[in-house]
């Protein structure tokens, strides 16, 4: 047998002492991962420029401040949704959880519960529903779409049980929260709700980028199988993202209650879809593993700005908002598709 001769063939070529990767050390160039977010930023800037050119009083502090304040609950929802979508899941329950949270808080205030009990309860009801979803998704391996759809119906149904009619909220704490405004006279103001939304964004950003939990979220989105084989705590993380999303929905409900000062079972119908739209427009891949929470915030601002522009236009029906959002979504999804194809 020509044993030795063959052995040499495989092992004989001496490699160069140091192995350089196919790219090696390169000059810092723009990371492909930031492209979708930059796209969103460009769209946002274009809208601001067009709006500013077309309408007077558009680029004012008041309009910009209202953009943040009026969308604070949607920002919170989109942040929670980002966690779920980053793992490759989806959460359809958040709109209904918002309604449940507003109904529950209104009902509790009506029955004389103090604010320091009601406010945590309004948030924690979302946490609880999120936990149930997480367990369904992970332990019983139900697809997120179905598990959260079930939770959506459950939460919406509970709303009608608690509050068949709209219940006004007259609690002094809520009233104060809804009326407080800090800021300058020229309209650049911030409300407690706006601050809460910004705080949620900052916490979410730090969690996603500076904790092991956050990195595990990305790893699961990249490949759940790999994450498991790498020994990462996949189970815990998957349950936790739904808990986070549920908690954000509960908090979003609270913000909405502050905004509307009432609890109503038809609140937030379709709001989960707005949140998903914001996340996708913000550049997060629905397949998971790629995206940024700041992108989702930009996504919400784009959605809000569309609405603002249509209000400024005056003659257009508000349904145009939906049409423009639909078109934008399509464009972004196609762009993402192209990015993925190019990466392969």
């Amino acid at each position, binding site marked *: *047998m*020509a*044993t030795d*001769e*063959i*052995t040499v*063939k*495989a*092992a*004989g*070529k*001496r*490699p160069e*002492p*140091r*192995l*350089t*990767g*196919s*790219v*090696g*050390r*390169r000059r810092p160039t723009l*990371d*492909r*991962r930031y492209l979708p977010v930059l796209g969103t930023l460009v769209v946002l800037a274009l809208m601001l420029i067009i709006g500013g050119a077309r309408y007077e009083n558009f680029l004012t502090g008041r309009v910009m401040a209202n953009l943040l304040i009026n969308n604070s609950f949607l920002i919170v929802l989109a942040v929670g949704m980002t966690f779920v979508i980053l793992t490759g899941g989806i959460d359809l329950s958040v709109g209904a959880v918002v309604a449940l949270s507003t109904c529950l808080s209104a009902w509790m205030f009506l029955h004389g519960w103090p604010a320091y009990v009601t406010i945590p309860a309004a948030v924690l009801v979302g946490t609880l529903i999120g936990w149930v979803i997480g367990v369904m998704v992970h332990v019983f391996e139900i697809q997120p779409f179905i598990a959260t759809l079930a939770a959506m119906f459950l939460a919406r149904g509970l709303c009608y049980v608690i509050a068949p009619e709209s219940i006004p909220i007259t609690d002094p704490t809520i009233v104060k929260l809804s009326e407080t405004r800090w800021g300058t006279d020229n309209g650049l103001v911030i409300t407690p709700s706006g601050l809460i939304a910004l705080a949620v964004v900052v916490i979410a950003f*730090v969690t996603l*980028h*500076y*904790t*092991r939990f956050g*990195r*595990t979220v*990305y*790893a699961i*989105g*990249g*490949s759940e*199988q*790999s*994450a*498991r*084989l*790498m*020994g*990462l*705590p996949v189970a815990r993380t998957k349950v936790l993202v739904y808990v986070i999303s549920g908690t954000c929905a509960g908090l979003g409900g609270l913000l909405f209650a502050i905004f509307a000062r009432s609890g109503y079972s038809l609140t937030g119908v379709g709001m989960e879809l707005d949140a998903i739209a914001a996340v996708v427009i913000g550049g997060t891949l629905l397949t998971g*593993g*790629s995206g940024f929470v700041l992108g989702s915030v930009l996504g919400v601002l784009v959605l809000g700005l569309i609405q603002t522009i249509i209000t400024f236009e005056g003659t257009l029906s508000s349904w145009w908002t939906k049409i423009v959002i639909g078109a934008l979504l399509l464009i972004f999804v196609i762009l993402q598709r192209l990015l993925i194809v190019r*990466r392969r």
Partner: protein
Amino acid sequence: MTVPTPSPIVQMSGISIAFPGVKALDGVDFRLFPGEVHALMGENGAGKSTLIKALTGVYGIDSGRIVVGGVEQVFSGPAAAQAAGVSTVYQEVNLTDNLSVAENVMLGHEVRRFGLVDWRATRKAARTYLEALNLDIDPRSSLSSHSLAVQQLVAISRAMVVDAQVLILDEPTSSLDSDEVARLFDVIRTLRERGVAILFVSHFLDQVYAISDRITVLRNGALVGEYRPAELPRVELVGKMIGRALEVLTELEGSTERVVVDRSGTPLLQAIGVGRRGSIEPFDLDVYPGEIVGLAGLLGSGRTELARLLYGADHADTGETIVGGVSTKLRNPRAGLSRSIAFSSESRKTEGIIGDLTVRENIVLGLQAERGWLRRVPKKKADEVVSHYIEALGVRPANPDAIAGNLSGGNQQKVLLARWLATAPKLLILDEPTRGIDVGAKAEIQKLVADLAAQGMSVVFISAELDEVLRLSHRIAVLRDRRKVAELVNSDDVTTDVVVDLIASGGTSA
């Protein structure tokens, strides 16, 4: 070569695992010493992956003991195995390519300050681990920007982070070129010198002999033996892997007379320098009408890959395919089908039989695909075709409305054959048509193939069992390490030993 210390780091004894209907491992013993490279060899289904999965906690064991580092272990999963110092690098690199190299190395072990990840320190640590393997790449770069070989080394770096004492490399070289393999081997040698025990699985004999200190052979879920490579010539290794328990079949079949195929006309199919990067190196192959061309080689030698190129299931990067004298681009299976080439896949269950449909529906599928979806096959014609083939091939039960999934493997194979025969192909490619079916059914299918060829159909016949290839084929193409290394005209002088020699030596010393 290091001299193994007397106490093994991994000692598996009497490991048995059964899946429904299959004994995947049957009382297998396996040991692994620190500072050695131990190759685990065996054909497909021999139980290599099952043994690895038992060791890494992916599968629970039915009986037996696993002792790692002197402690009896029952791993609940990969995380538990890693904690005990057993790390695995899989064939499909199990990293996440949406993250950076540094993160992939350090995920779950990031350096933290005040509870938050310190990226600077984490990247520095990652660089240290990468440099320990002579891997000079930017830890910030995205994993997907690197070749598979580099990703493989990154995966090994990751294994070092968890301080692995046992490193399992499951077919790490299957998609690497020879330079990359040499680099990987350098890393393996470095680790061996550091006392890491390495379990190496590969189908490439050269590589096994180049790197391993010890070889364990499995066959059909049972241990064949543990050997030193120096004491085990290649031929014997191949013999031990394939086994020689096929006498029954030989008796059943009797001797077939050798038919000489007329090779003067135009070949039905002519492949000139056809190849596909990472799949199979360019090869030439002619198939004449009425000829059976057998493909011989070990699993992973490129048998299936070659067949898929002929059919158009994968499209070739290089070379030219000439069908019936006309140069053809085969871009997809339909292109193959429309040129009367039929391909019966080796994975009967996933790429062939549709278990929930009836025998009739399964047979008619091929015809329907040929006609296009808009032109229904008339019921009368379908019935005719179905009953003809059920009778001709002897499908049991002879009931066209039986659910295909409930048939035995051999009968499913006949249904599959019927599907392709119904399209009246000129060339039939059969990939492992007899795998996993009983001896009687095997003989029937072999006879069918011989009869079809006698009627003028060309057949490309792939089987892991050399006896079968030799018995049927007029010509034999020998494949090894994704390369066609030899082609011989079958005669009584060609025996399994001749072919095993060719496989073992790569055609350099026949």
